[in-house]
């Protein structure tokens, strides 16, 4: 597979900056690269067949409720609107996620759209991650109201984003429109400096999608 060029190429340089707290950097920031991202849209309100098709196509059934993600085996299915899900998985040579979902949903009332290059995905983690996001995101990201695997569309500063709570560290994945990624990255870097920020290389981002 030909290597992809991230929207953040040259902007995201690994290293520490800002004013860290005594316990180390308050924010760990990195880009999740080489992701396959496929949208599945159900046509009409009866979407049981679509849910089943998604499960068959990627191995993970969508969560039953709205605004929740389901995960398993490195694949995440994020609710992104009524009857809409984003299926996210690491790209694998010889295995086209969009094609697998197309095949699994061939007879279901659904539309499969590849958005793998449309989103830049950032992982924001660390003890100050919530404080950082609060500077630009009007959502209440407290664990009580936004538990692990909650996901919602919101804003980060000027940029629209889909936020997914990944763990209780806390860590969040931010799905940003590619064209906004660089501006958003600069905003995050400046906003994170007061907590101390460590930028990690994409390869150092562990944890499943």
């Amino acid at each position, binding site marked *: 597979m*030909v290597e*992809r060029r991230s929207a953040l190429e040259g902007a995201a340089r690994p290293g520490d900056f800002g004013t860290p707290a005594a316990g180390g950097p308050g924010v760990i920031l990195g880009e999740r690269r080489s992701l396959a991202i496929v949208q599945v849209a159900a046509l009409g309100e009866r979407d049981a067949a679509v849910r089943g098709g998604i499960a068959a196509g990627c191995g993970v059934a969508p969560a039953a409720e709205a605004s929740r993600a389901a995960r398993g085996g490195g694949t995440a299915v994020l609710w992104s609107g009524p009857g809409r899900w984003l299926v996210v998985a690491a790209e694998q040579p010889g295995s086209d996620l969009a094609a697998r979902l197309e095949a699994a949903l061939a007879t279901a009332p659904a539309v499969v759209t590849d958005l793998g290059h*449309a989103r830049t995905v950032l992982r924001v983690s660390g003890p100050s991650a919530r404080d950082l996001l609060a500077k630009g995101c009007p959502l209440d990201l407290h664990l009580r*109201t936004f538990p692990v695997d909650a996901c919602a569309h919101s804003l980060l500063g000027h940029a629209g984003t889909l936020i997914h709570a990944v763990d209780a560290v806390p860590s969040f994945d931010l799905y940003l429109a590619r064209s*906004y990624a660089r501006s958003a990255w600069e905003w995050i870097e400046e906003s994170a400096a007061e907590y101390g920020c460590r930028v990690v290389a994409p390869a150092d981002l562990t944890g499943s999608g």
Partner: protein
Amino acid sequence: MSAQPFRLPAGGRIDRSRPLAFRFDGKPYTGFAGDSLAAALLANGVRLVGRSFKYHRPRGIFSAGPEEPNALVRLRREARAEPNTRATMIELFDGLEAESQNRWPSLGFDLGATASLFAPLLPAGFYYKTFMAPRRGWMFYERFIRAAAGMGRAAEAPDPDHYEKRHAHCDVLVVGGGPAGLAAALAAGRTGARVLLVEERAELGGALRREAAAISDAPAAEWLAATLAELASLSEVRLLRRATAFGYYDHNLVAVLERVADHLPEPPPHRARQVLWQVRAPQVVLATGAIERPLVFAGNDRPQVMLASAARAYLNEFAVAPGTRAVVFTNNDSAYATALDLRRVGIRVTAVVDPREGSGGDLPRRAREAGIECRFGHAVLAARGRSRVSAVEVASLGTAGHEHGDNLDCDLLCVSGGWSPTLHLHCQSGGRPEWNEALAAFVPGRSKQAERSAGAAAGAFALVDCIAGGLRAGAEAAQAAGFGTGVAPPAPDWPRESAAPLRPLWSVPARRWLKSFVDLQDDVTAGDIGLAAREGFVSVEHLKRYTTLGMGTDQGKTSNVNGLALLAEKRGEAIPAVGVTTFRPPYTPVAIGSFAGRETGRHFEPIRRTAMHEWHESAGAAWIEAGLWLRPSCYPRSGESEREAIRREAVAVRQGVGLVDVSTLGKIDIAGPDAAAFLDRVYANIFSNLPVGRARYGLMLREDGIVFDDGTTSRLAEQRFLMTTTTANAVRVMQHLEFLLQTVWPELRVAATSVTEQWAAMALAGPKSRDVLARAAEGVDVSDAGLPHMGVRDGRIAGVPVRIFRISFSGERAYEINVPADWGLRVWTALLDAGRESGIVPYGMEAMGILRIEKGHVAGAELDGTTTAADLGLGRLVAMKKPDFIGRHMLARPALADPRRPRLVGFVPVDGATRLRAGAQIVADSRVPPPVPMIGRITSAADSPTLGHPIALGFLEAGASRHGETLHALFPLADQWVPVRVVDPVFYDRAGERLHG
């Protein structure tokens, strides 16, 4: 280092081990950590700190809190200078510099003070009166009034600091960190509710910090320490200090300004100076305390006339003696505590003057026991002295105004006219305060939002009542937010001091030539209010505007109730009948910078970048903004002007081959069994008969029949289309489609998804474009048979999948290539490499604009929201045979069908050389006197390198039948008129042969 002559030898909550140097009006002083600037000035014996707004009267420090009307100073220097900051709220820091305001040449000798001599000419409303007779008078006055108006000077250099915003959520927001607020936070916090407490000062404790009793009195001090410790242990309780809740908006949105670094010389690295918090709380507890009211008597604005509670704060919190010989003038019991505290530290209290006939309260009794002279039934007639009080005239109330009273020497006059609960946020939330006769004060009325008041803010002034009320409010708020049982924890069981009721005394009769101030900041006197009432300003809202009562930066915190009561007195009505002035945000002044937050400079707006952005940058592109996108306008080579570059690029496309980044065009994936039917409804032309693998130009109308947007839409599969939109309308078209699918035709089985971000797009255009494509592309037949005009094929370039559309905006043979965005740069450079031997040239928006104008293609300038398809010469596209489509019905409106409507035409200058301007108006005859009938306009203009002369597109009434006429293009802004000839809008290759060339 000066000696701080008025610093008490012991006590206070200052840190004597940390002396801080500061300057006021250039003179060096020292204070201690923990001082406010006001406290440090008083410790150094500085009594005169400013000049008043209108009369330039000498003014001192009046309060110890946010209500300060007098002690406004310019803080810091140069770019960080901030006018009108309250000395009472500034935390002292080492190296602080402040200067006094509203004086020239100096604070001690101020020429503006001559305004006092003209005082009889400057009555209430004099400003409005200058507008009246004589009619020309205003022209004369204006210069002087403008020069005298305003307070303080803003910094002129850009602010070197940054500001931020943040969102916050909690179950219970508590405003105020005094005993009531802390109790509320504790009661709510114990239930597990998320609690945010905001306190405007640096330390928590509120009035407890100022009570000598709390420091020596073990129970209160212990309660405070234990409460703070428990709050710190609750993980869901957050205490935010130096944070003022200044605005209460709908849906319990409370705005809070956190002064992160105002107490420091400059913000630490990466920290904002101030942060604007937007707090959303299901429940709010307002524990905002109360503000002491002044008394209105002659000379009550002299420096060293001070609120009794403020004098106590300086004594107890800051260990500063605000004077050496004091008189206390009060109509209530609370100021007796001040008298006792003054006496305790050895300041002589000459007398307590009290208009009441007596008081059986505990505090007055203790004052009498301490040997303090209490003159009941008396009032202070006048404060004497110039730049500070030197004596007061005291008389029996019955004789006041008729006879001279006793002169008592003093250098400090402490006043108390009772207490007003701080109702600003309650009012802003929609509550309407109610008058409480017993307290002679407004108290919170019925809540309109989920808020409740506690403590002094609710009219409960005794400490035990504050704590009990706070606990109750906190428990109830938590329960309302879904936590706990609503039962308040037990309150301390302390004895309550008995207090006698106050006696309202709204003004002391004064001799006619003396001024009794109601509003110290805006220099509004009791006389002004009387005058306004006589002139008919009987509504409190009119009174306020006419006299400027309460319209200073302090928003009348110390003057509102007194002013209202005086108006009621003049009208002979009860205070509630006169009404209450409402409070608007902000509670205290807020710097504009905090509203801007980070959204300045490069973060004012985000920049959207295409996948090829960095290449354009390194190629030296000149940029043009297209919405939030940055697009190359042209790529000037070294030594080349932009104009030359644009010309070169346009010529290259006509003669060779060019490559342009068109990634910003909107792209929408439209798929599902009803996709074709959907497109037939949203476009004016037909799409259902479009074969797979073909593209078609589409014209989209608004409901009113006017053209909305245009673009090519391709059929990728039987049930899948790719729609393109203009860059400008990409979002609007997407919203339009979603609206239609969700609300108008929910039965259609179609999904519309924006894929603008998924695809990088570039157009390869020019007679040599096929050669280049043939060299670069694999797996696709690019011959005219394999990829005909308006054909769409998949292929590969540089090893990655691409989609190739044979469509043209320039009129030349052209291919638009879409590639998944992360590979956009790869394909872009591959095409440039493949085009090198053909002399390929990257081109920008300007060249593209010239090429499309030459071809008469319409763009945003023509689709301006006023033009129909027929106006644009595209009437043939509108498929009226379709049963319905958006805009169809309104097309039949007579105004849209009028044959005289302006139609798209071309214009060329008659002399073949003068450049035409977009925006010019077309007239038939330039010699007729105005108003000249305007019969058309120019929308786009270019200097055509292909044709060798200027050209323009525009609209002309009945234009289709006027080709060949000579008219005039007027551009009055440049005083230009150009004879133009009307021509066909397609200037070049009318037959369209070059598409296949």
